[in-house]
């Protein structure tokens, strides 16, 4: 059976049950106005015996003909309007059903379709984006949530790209390739042997080719490189992230909407750290002397490059700066079967190991404690010249030296290496950033790991991977991954995007405290995913478990506790969004300090005015009659949310009460001449906190 048809069927089944169960708006396409899903207030016990009677009873009350069809849950029932009774609109019936005291809620039973299978003809070969193999990332599942937004930019720091590839068009021509920049400098003697384009840094990141001839190898500059044809490496990486998708041609990218910023940092025989670091700065929107500012700063930087060694201070320092700006750096682990290379072994990056299709480590991939997670690295199974079964198909060029004909890699011109595992993860990160603009580097990294699929248990006959330091020789054969050496698990686009939809907790608090001081913890700058809002705050005491101190405003965005006179107090804040998703963080309040790993503010991202739905479906769905104008169902009443403050994460009456109490206590403290720290504290938390969104957050101290 055609794989696309299988996917269609699977996705249809999944989506209908999912959406029916949660009654969520989701990505409706075609509405069937003659069915409802009713949640009764009491259980149907047994469902089959009472469902018909209950539907009949409802029908009488709303003056129409209804028929119970399928029981969905103990109180959840699908009901159809009887087809011959079309005198009343579904909207009218829906309204009346909602007024019935026996009905907790009712929504339209809408028809759903898989919307996110692209029509690119080579997509069927892109096994790594699908869900049939254990290591495949199920991008198709994630695309039902988002296909990526165009204002999310992924920079590819590589050999440049071929803009003339039909799947890698420039943005002005309807493609997704931004102008980019070429950072490959000339040699100090004035030559351009590495750059290979007769110029140093310039605005054209086109890849001129990086072939090495035997004559080149006589030059000291290239003596350490093997003779090779041009790799078109950047073109391959770029296609995996942002090939034009759903354009009825070629392959699909990991994202359909995100734009790609080509940053050329590698030439013949590689590239220097100085150019790579400059390219990273520029890609992230930081200034580089002598280079125009980047008008399209990237959220994700893909570096499918490296070499052995330890992470230099230059990389560590820049990565720290990028982390502070919320930029995620995704790197390939390297292909030596040993320790992760530089910069994959630098702190704060996402280091991606390569996996075989079954989820074991592909032999060539590096591994070790530095690895964040694994993703398909490409493997052939057949190695004797037959079809390479699990190539990572992408865009490329056939030129052996300069550019030739554009083509796509395939089973007979395969593509593999950790270089191509990294862009798979970069694509996922771009999808994550598309649904939640409040994810910083730390959250993106953590939720990539959170969404990962656990590694399969060890296969018979495949040895366990071990730490490179425990292996006398490189582990260049397949081995069974563990979290110790291959990261959190196998990259999973759907899992990661779902994790990205959770809100992001943020806590602002004074940096220091004094024993017995009242400490205000402010979570109003927590942020939700696009289209959602934070509605609930719950502060609890984690420790001490006995004689726990009270929390003023335990269910509001702004809470207060008294700093202990000795030891420390650990609080946990859990925030809930309007879809019931949560995030939490702990805060340590000691006699002289407050600390938390949570960011101080997380609602800084700006979502697009209208979040793009998945594009129109490609597979032709079964036509669905729409005899009456499609009613717009009222959103399903959400499960009772946690006690909430007002929308937008703001104050509310409880907060005002909290602040009034605190102000009173603090004024009393001032009158009795207590510590000066209190006066500092008081001055940084004026009673007009509600209007403090524009406050300089730094004046509150940092965590």
């Amino acid at each position, binding site marked *: 059976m055609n794989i696309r048809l299988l996917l269609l069927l699977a996705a249809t089944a999944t989506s209908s049950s999912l959406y029916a169960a949660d009654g969520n708006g989701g990505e409706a396409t075609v509405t069937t106005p003659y069915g409802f899903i009713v949640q009764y207030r009491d259980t149907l016990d047994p469902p089959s015996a009472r469902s018909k009677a209950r539907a009949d009873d409802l029908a009488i009350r709303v003056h129409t003909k209804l028929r119970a069809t399928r029981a969905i849950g103990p109180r959840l029932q699908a009901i159809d309007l009887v087809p011959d009774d079309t005198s009343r609109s579904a909207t009218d019936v829906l309204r009346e059903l909602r007024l019935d005291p026996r009905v907790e809620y009712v929504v339209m039973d809408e028809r759903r379709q898989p919307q996110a299978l692209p029509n690119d003809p080579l997509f069927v070969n892109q096994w790594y984006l699908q869900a049939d193999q254990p290591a495949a990332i199920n991008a198709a599942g994630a695309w039902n949530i988002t296909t990526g937004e165009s204002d999310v930019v992924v920079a590819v720091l590589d050999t440049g790209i071929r803009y003339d590839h039909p799947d890698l068009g420039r943005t002005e021509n309807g493609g997704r390739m931004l102008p980019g920049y070429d950072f490959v400098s000339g040699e100090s003697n004035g030559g351009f042997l590495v750059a290979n384009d007769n110029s140093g840094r310039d605005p054209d990141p086109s890849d001129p080719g990086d072939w090495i001839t035997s004559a080149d190898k006589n030059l000291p500059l290239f003596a350490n*490189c093997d003779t090779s044809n041009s790799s078109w490496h950047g073109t391959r990486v770029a296609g995996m992230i942002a090939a034009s998708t759903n354009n009825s041609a070629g392959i699909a990218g990991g994202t359909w909407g995100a734009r790609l910023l080509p940053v050329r940092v590698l030439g013949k025989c590689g590239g220097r750290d100085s150019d790579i670091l400059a390219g990273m700065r520029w890609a992230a929107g930081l200034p580089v002397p002598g280079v125009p500012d980047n008008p399209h700063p990237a959220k994700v930087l893909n570096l*499918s490059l490296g070499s052995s060694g330890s992470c230099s201070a230059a990389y560590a320092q820049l990565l720290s700066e990028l982390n502070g700006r919320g930029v995620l750096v995704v790197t390939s682990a390297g292909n030596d079967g040993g320790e992760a290379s530089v910069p994959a072994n630098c702190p704060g990056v996402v280091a991606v190991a390569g996996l075989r299709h079954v989820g074991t480590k592909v032999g060539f991939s590096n591994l070790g404690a530095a690895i964040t997670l694994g993703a398909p690295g490409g493997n052939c199974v057949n190695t004797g010249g037959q079809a390479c079964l699990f190539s990572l198909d992408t865009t490329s060029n056939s030129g052996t030296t300069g550019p030739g004909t554009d083509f796509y890699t395939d089973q007979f011109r395969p593509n593999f290496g950790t270089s191509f595992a990294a862009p798979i993860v970069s694509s996922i990160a771009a999808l994550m950033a598309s649904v939640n603009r409040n994810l910083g580097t730390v959250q993106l990294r953590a939720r990539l790991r959170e969404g990962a699929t656990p590694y399969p248990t060890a296969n018979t006959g495949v040895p366990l991977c071990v730490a490179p330091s425990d292996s006398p020789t490189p582990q260049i054969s397949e081995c069974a991954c563990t979290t110790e050496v291959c990261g959190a698990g196998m990259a999973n686009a759907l899992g990661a995007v779902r994790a990205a939809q959770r809100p992001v907790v943020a806590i602002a608090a004074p940096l220091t405290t004094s024993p017995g001081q009242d400490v205000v913890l402010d979570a109003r700058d927590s942020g939700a995913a696009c289209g959602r809002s934070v509605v609930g705050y719950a502060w609890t005491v984690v420790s001490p478990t006995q004689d726990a101190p009270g929390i003023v405003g335990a269910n509001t965005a702004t809470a207060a506790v008294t700093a202990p006179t000795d030891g420390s107090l650990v609080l946990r804040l859990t925030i809930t969004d309007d879809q019931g998703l949560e995030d939490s963080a702990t805060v340590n309040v000691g006699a002289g300090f407050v600390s938390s790993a949570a960011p101080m503010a997380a609602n800084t991202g700006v979502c697009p005015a209208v979040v793009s739905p998945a594009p129109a479906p490609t597979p032709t769905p079964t036509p669905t009659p729409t005899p009456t104008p499609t009613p717009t169902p009222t959103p399903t009443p959400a499960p009772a949310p946690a006690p909430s403050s007002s929308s937008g994460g703001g104050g509310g009456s409880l907060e005002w009460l909290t602040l009034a109490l605190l102000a009173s206590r603090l004024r009393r403290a001032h009158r009795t001449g207590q510590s000066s720290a209190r006066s500092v504290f008081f001055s940084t938390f004026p009673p007009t906190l509600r209007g403090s969104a524009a406050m300089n957050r730094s004046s509150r101290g940092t965590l």
Partner: protein
Amino acid sequence: MYSLAVLDGVPALARLPSWLAVLTLVGCAVRQPDTAAICVPVIVELTSPVAHKPAVAEIARRTGVPLTAGSAISALSVAVAVGPLPSGMTCDSAMTRLRADRAIRSISADVRRRAQPAARPE
């Protein structure tokens, strides 16, 4: 450590016939393992954001280490070519001099990185 990088990025040698370049390199490696005409390129982080070329030229004058400022990385950091060194100066001693200079906060090797496609199918 720096003398090992003599094979990489040596423009003066690049102009020699290949057999002569190889002989020269082998000769250097055998006879003068601790001395090199040209050291590995470095990234110099300055202590203050000043114009790179004059700053590097001034450091070269002060330390006696021949330096050539290359491409900028940031307001503080710049790629620098080191050499050819004067007779008797090794790369290690040159680096020691540079690290001691008041205008330099840090120095790191400007290492060459490569793309990471795999070499063999499996």
